[in-house]
């Protein structure tokens, strides 16, 4: 799956568009503990989390993550404005969905995205 195709999944709102929409997603990772993300996720991954803190963008940028999906986010206004601003500045693709982490990962998997520890 290409990172640009995430925008076209149902129930996804794109907050910051990917800079390279044709880039193939290298794997999927989910955690809400950013220290775990720093230890395990890697370049080109899609990261699914319900955290909305600006550090999400800092960590994604640090690791060269292809994009971040913020889950359980029924109201985009509840995301810290600094998070979205920082994602724009650092060109980190940012998506939001009201769906749970489980559901969105199941959809990504059906679209062919593998976990970082498989495939």
């Amino acid at each position: 799956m290409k990172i640009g195709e995430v925008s076209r999944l149902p129930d996804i709102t794109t907050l910051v568009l990917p800079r390279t929409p044709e880039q193939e997603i290298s794997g999927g990772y989910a955690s809400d503990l950013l220290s775990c993300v720093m230890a395990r996720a890697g370049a080109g991954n899609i990261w699914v989390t319900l955290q909305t803190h600006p550090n999400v963008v800092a960590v994604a940028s640090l690791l060269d993550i292809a994009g971040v999906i913020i889950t359980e986010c029924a109201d985009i206004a509840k995301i810290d404005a600094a998070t979205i601003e920082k994602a724009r500045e650092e060109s980190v693709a940012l998506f939001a969905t009201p769906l749970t982490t489980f559901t969105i990962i199941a959809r990504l998997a059906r679209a062919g995205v593998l976990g970082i520890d498989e495939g």
Partner: protein
Amino acid sequence: MSLLYLPAEFHLHTVLSACAEIEMLPPLIIRQAQKLGIQWLAVTDHNSAENAGALIEAGKRAGIAVLPGMEVQTREEVHLLCLFDELEPALAWQEQVYQHLPDLPNREETFGSQLVVDAEGEFLRFQERLLQTSTSLSVEQVFTMVEALGGLVIPAHVDRPAFSLLANLGIIPPGLHITAAEITPRLTPAQALERFPQLAGLTLITNGDAHRLSEMAGRTLVRVAEPTLAELRLALAGADGRKVWVT
């Protein structure tokens, strides 16, 4: 001005915290502090300061200084110690925290009881709302709101694998007004710096995070003119001859 050397414990739970043992009553906490030579305490129950007045009162009778405080849980599940000089701003902070806690009942059979007691340790009432959960406040909001009330925020047990600034947020958020961090007694400040290089430049303190009397240790030694928050700030900054050591 002559300076005092005060063994201190700034992270302490009472029976108001559902996870604390029933022995965590003001007179017993103060007796344990006297036994160990701890001269400065802060009371930091989860998301509440309802027993702070009782511990201050019990401390006053024994000549042990007690700062009212709280261990607040942010929406990122980060635990932050919030310390105040006086009860009034601590209770004002508690009001703000209560407004940002979900309105759920405590499930005693799962979490344990939350008891409000007096300085003698006598039962006053149950706190029936759920305290041991996340507020909807961000780390940044807690810093801003506590500082506006004149309080001091210290990230709690940053070396723990959960409920910690470093575990949950990976890196110390830039722009955060942070001067000190708490580490657990499981490692020394030198070991903490080795494992978490980001802590460089911060003053590290160690507390027992006592949920039972035996976890009080008084391993943080503070050199101050008097046990006030203003003096603690100086000590954490290493200013004017004030200083903090982990022993």
